[in-house]
């Protein structure tokens, strides 16, 4: 999911220490670098951010071209990501680099994601979902950072939460329409921040807290690098989803039917897809089911009963 869309131009006015004039005589604007972590991050990740926004997955999503199956898998990836991140934040909540940014009631998402997964997969969703390879690499790094250098968790939190609070509402509406999800919000709890009245005000508060952290220059630079790494992990998850999407896509295109906006990518609505499944795919699947059932003692009993019943019917008819 795309990260923060900047709502200011990020132009730098030089800030000199020690009061008085903002610019000393003859000083050019560009010669003084900003010190605020929020500004360093915004500038330092701009390229990654633009790249992420322009991945095919994101562009398609924004146009409403998102299949339910893919959205579900995306939600699964988010679940594992946020669970890892929020557990590490919780573990480190007294750490001086984490405490000022500790807002569980306002921004933590893993519970909302669990509710969404329950909606999509049913009550036993936990046994149905698993952490994909790309998500594993992402969460692995988060765990590593939480263990070895908690200050870098800020980078991961910034990358995800600032983004969620920026594009979030737009994405929610897109997803709702594309997949005809109920207007009461099921399946989209992730996008709903009940503890935040104004996303804009919260982001400003979050930035002020980031800037209050006591960090030396090298640490700030490492945080920016880690944020770029976080963007990278996110893009890998998108790519992974895209690949999966292609295998779904193939079957629709087989029918030679142009993908029209109205269908909105909900593959179960495609008449050709359904027919094809019935005609070809169904048989082998049924066979597998049958042999599996037969291995089970209950299956054998049922089969015996079935045979007996059939024999009885035949006998009755012939009599």
């Amino acid at each position, binding site marked *: 999911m795309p990260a923060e869309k900047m709502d200011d131009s990020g132009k730098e006015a030089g800030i000199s220490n020690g009061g008085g004039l903002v610019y000393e005589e003859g000083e050019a604007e560009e010669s003084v670098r900003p010190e605020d972590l929020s500004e360093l991050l915004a500038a330092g990740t701009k390229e990654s951010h633009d790249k992420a926004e322009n991945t095919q997955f994101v562009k398609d999503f924004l146009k409403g071209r998102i299949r339910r199956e893919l959205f579900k898998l995306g939600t699964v990836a988010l679940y594992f990501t946020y669970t890892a991140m929020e557990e590490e934040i919780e573990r480190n909540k007294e750490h001086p680099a984490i405490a000022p940014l500790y807002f569980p009631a306002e921004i933590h998402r893993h519970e909302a994601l669990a509710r969404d997964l329950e909606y999509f997969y049913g009550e036993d969703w936990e046994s149905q979902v698993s952490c994909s390879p790309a998500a594993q690499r992402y969460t692995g790094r988060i765990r590593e950072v939480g263990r070895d250098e908690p200050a870098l968790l800020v980078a991961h939190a910034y990358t995800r939460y600032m983004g969620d609070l920026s594009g979030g509402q737009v994405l929610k509406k897109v997803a709702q329409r594309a997949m005809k999800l109920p207007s009461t919000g099921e399946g989209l709890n992730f996008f709903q921040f009940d503890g935040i009245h104004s996303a804009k005000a919260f982001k400003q508060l979050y930035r002020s807290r980031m800037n209050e952290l006591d960090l030396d220059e090298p640490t700030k630079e490492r945080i920016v690098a880690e944020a770029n790494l976080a963007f990278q992990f996110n893009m890998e998850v998108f790519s992974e989803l895209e690949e999966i999407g292609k295998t779904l896509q193939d079957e629709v295109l087989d029918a030679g039917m142009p993908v029209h906006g109205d269908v909105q990518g909900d593959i179960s609505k495609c008449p050709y897809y359904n027919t094809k499944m019935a*005609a070809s795919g169904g048989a082998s699947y049924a066979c597998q089911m049958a042999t599996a059932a037969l291995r089970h003692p209950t299956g*054998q009993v049922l089969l015996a009963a079935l045979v007996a019943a059939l024999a009885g019917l035949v006998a009755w008819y012939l009599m």
Partner: protein
Amino acid sequence: MADSEVESQSPDPGAVEEPLFTTLDIVLFTFIVGLLIYWFMSRQKKEEIPEFKKLTAVAPPVRETSFIEKMKKTNRNIVVFYGSQTGTAEEFSNRLAKDAQRYGMRGMAADPEEYDLSELSRLSEINNSLALFCMATYGEGDPTDNAQDFYDWLQETDAELEGVNYTVFALGNKTYEHYNAMGKYVDKRLAELGATRIFDLGMGDDDGNLEEDFVSWREQFWPAVCEHFGVEATGEESSIRQYELVLHTDINMNKVYTGELGRLKSFETQKPPFDSKNPFLAPVTANRKLNKGGSRHLMHVELEISSSKIRYDSGDHVAVYPINDASVVNKIGDILGVDLDTVISLNNLDEESNKRHPFPCPATYRTALMHYLDVSNPPRTNVLYELAQYATDPKDQETMRKMASSSPEGKALYHSWVLDSRRNILAILEDMPSLRPPIDHLCELMPRLQARYYSIASSSKVHANTIHICAVVVEYETKTGRTNKGVATNWLKNKVVTDNGHKSTVPMYVRKSQFRLPFKSSNPVIMIGPGTGIAPFMGFIQERGLLKEQGKEVGETVLFYGCRHRGEDFLYQEELEEFEKAGVLTQLNVAFSRDQEHKVYVQHLLKQNKEHLWKLIHSENAHIYICGDARNMARDVQTAFYEIAEEEGGLTRTQAVDYIKRLMTKGRYSQDVWS
């Protein structure tokens, strides 16, 4: 043979499954089953599996790219183009296209990306034609993806659009700087190109209530269209009830709502967590007048929250659910000749709708008018339009319809007779004696009574069990000689402090805000809060005081307060002077606006302190907080800061504006303002 084959396999101990069936078993079984299946199948109709031939690429049907031709072919006179990203504008367009039928016209929604918009100049080829635009603004005032080409064309073209009728509805979000830029541009540009605008640009704000904006705009839009084309609205248009009235003559009163917002009996058995649907009934433990003189009444109210488990931070807001004045409600009942204690339900005629009732039902009319409906604000024009039919005097009816119309005289009349004169529904009923609507229709039309939000005037670290409110009672004379009273403030004012016998409660919950002291107490804070804007700063200062007591390093704590007269409305004077003496408030600056000939306001004091303020802001990482009036004070204070940045920081105005804007983005310049 099969058996020996099976037995001759040398099994790894425990590793091989016992074969289920021998080969012979399987053969016999399959034979029998096969016969049976064949027999069954031949008796039933064979289920059709469609012949699935591999399709060669089917040539798509030739798509009409001329919307004019399509309109002619399908006999439509109205086309609704949508610039939509998330589908909302598209949905609105579909609804508008459907609406057309009610007025004897035919509409079609169209994606501008699929048609050649330069054909707009041909629209006059169709009789009584109209082009509607539902345009959403995206990002930094940009068109949506599907409207990009249209936008480019508008900019480059010099087409002549005489005879083209149009109207625009804009969708956007007020929190963005370029609010509705796209809608505004289309509306302006089409006029520049010579097209005829037949109704005002509609402005939808997603930060408020986009749906409501759309619906109220639409209700006036269609009458304007009818007027323009000389078309009569078909009869069904005149009164569209959304709800059906059901009278409950014999109902168990336990099933009747008496003011709850969510679960029935949630006021009797209170269960946390407390929120907007489930407020906590907080006892009132203090209620005193703050000002020493003057005609206004400023009050300090304390609510007891210890049994609720409610937590809050200084800077948060407390939401309270007020009740309307009983005498106003009784008068409405009298004037309409209704027994207000009748138990009723209003059920939505649209069974698909999520909104079953306009307010919790079943309830009495009295409960609805006291607890659920807003009867104090001047009604909107759509309410007047719906009620007009109930005016038996034709002149009254005409006046009502006129005020609801979009004509300039009608709008002017509405502004003067309703808005400027601050006539609420009761006043309208009193001043239009022939207007006697059925009370259930009235209840359907009145908007919901909203909760009121107050900045909490205490710190939970100092006052864990109470929430303090600082508010000014609203009361004023209208042009009609009536006295209008603010619903919540008057209701709060009359709350008697809880003692052993009588328990006064306020249904409330806490809404978290992002108005917060800096994390590091060593950071200086500059607070500007004239009048009741002082409220959150009482909490801030209490908290800074506590931190100082605890031995923490506390940065400078500077307050700029303003009021009319030192002797009258210097709120919390004693407390603030105590804090100053104790060194908690390092600077207390008060502007008394009316104590001298010329007006002195907080922004003047800011300028007087510009050197010190600039040092705090530029070199000591001070956080700035503004609380109070949005319209004038906040704007004037911001200007003062621009000037300080210019004068002390040697910046140009543009650089100063940018500097302050960056402080806002970084959360060092926060506002809690209201209008």
